[in-house]
């Protein structure tokens, strides 16, 4: 499939099993939550990568609008798509973690709320993408949507906080005391997830670029 191997893909192939091994064999068992707490390491990595992804999409959108170079649209698309995938996984793993710990699949914690709303916004961006045919128009529209979507983040987070401060609940996600070995594991899995993100992002970019070139060739042949 790939002629030249992407160094990040190779790193990811080594890094992900490595991180998984660290999570399962190196990290100590958390006392109150037990084995379920091991979800947390990858969950956090995914969340960080997803957030990074949306940030990249926003920056790519701004640069596309300023420079009108196709490469920024390709990057923007890739970032939105991988970001939506990662956010989906964050929401699912988080929900599975929450079930045994908080005894509920869903709670309106600020972080959960922010992830959910971002998921909605950027999925809407993907739908928008599929609804426009002309390349330039599609690129501009998605750039605008990615920018306004990311601009929403501070308000989303703020509102989620205020929402909670009036309805206080017992659940707190920040109350976990981390042992040094846990921090090491966390760092390893975070790095692994970022590498995986980078590899997927590059792969998606290259596919988008190939599709664009292919369309160009087709149009030139038809003339």
């Amino acid at each position: 499939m790939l002629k030249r191997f992407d160094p990040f893909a190779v790193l990811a192939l080594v890094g992900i099993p490595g991180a998984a091994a660290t999570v399962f064999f190196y990290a100590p068992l958390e006392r109150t939550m037990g084995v379920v707490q091991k979800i947390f390491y990858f969950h956090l990595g995914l969340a960080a990568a997803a957030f990074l992804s949306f940030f990249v999409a926003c920056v790519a959108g701004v640069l596309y609008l300023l420079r009108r170079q196709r490469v920024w649209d390709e990057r923007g698309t890739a970032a939105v798509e991988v970001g939506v995938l990662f956010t989906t996984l964050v929401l699912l793993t988080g929900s599975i973690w929450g079930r045994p710990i908080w005894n509920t699949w869903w709670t309106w914690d600020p972080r959960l709320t922010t992830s959910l709303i971002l998921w909605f916004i950027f999925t809407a961006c993907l739908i928008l993408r599929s609804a426009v045919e002309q390349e330039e128009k599609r690129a501009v529209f998605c750039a605008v949507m990615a920018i306004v979507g990311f601009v929403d983040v501070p308000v989303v987070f703020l509102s989620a906080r205020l929402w909670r401060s009036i309805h206080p609940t017992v659940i707190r996600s920040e109350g976990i005391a981390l042992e040094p070995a846990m921090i090491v594991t966390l760092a390893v899995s975070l790095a692994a997830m970022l590498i995986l993100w980078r590899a997927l992002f590059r792969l998606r970019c290259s596919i988008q670029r190939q599709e664009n070139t292919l369309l160009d060739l087709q149009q030139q042949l038809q003339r």
Partner: protein
Amino acid sequence: MTLPRQILLLYRKDLRVEVRKKESLIAMAFFGVLIMVILNLAAGLDRRLQAEPAAGVLWVAILFSSVLGLGRVFAREKENNCVAALLVSPLSPGALFAAKALVNFTLMSFSELVLVPVFFALFGAGLQPGLPVLLLLLALVNIGFSAAGTLLSALAAGTRRNEVMLPILLYPLCLPLVALAVKATGAAFGGRPMTEIRDLIESMAAFGLIYAAAGYLLFSHAVREA
């Protein structure tokens, strides 16, 4: 021509069309009332709603009905491709954004003149009207929703499925605004003083400000492609 005069000119033109046709306003008010009646039935005929769920009903009715008007306001410019003539003229795209947002704001405000009284008739039992706070909250939501809605209606108008795309794009962005509005209105209906919801009000104002600025800056890109 100066920016305010450009805005005023466009605003008057749009209002004149609206006064003549009344299509958006009637559709908005009618649909909004319809939603409230449906929700009233869904809540159970003789159940009295608490302050916060009642506030939710009000905002669902307002936001779901106003998306009908938002879509029309920009689609009208596309009908005979008038937007091309506007772009060729000395008009600044920022003025176009501001004018359209003002039109949307006006339409929402007028439809609320119908929706709010109907709401109190259906759900008002046991609620404090808290009128000054309610008016402030209505104004803030109208600003935020019309600013974001104007920008996104330009995007939606450029797609094949205008009517479907606008709500899909707009509601996710406006979720935080809705959440804040429901919270704040719930507090107002519960008879709590304004000082208690100051944080909420400030965040709602921030939302309006952010989208007014983003719309003003990004609108020119969006209309040129639409």
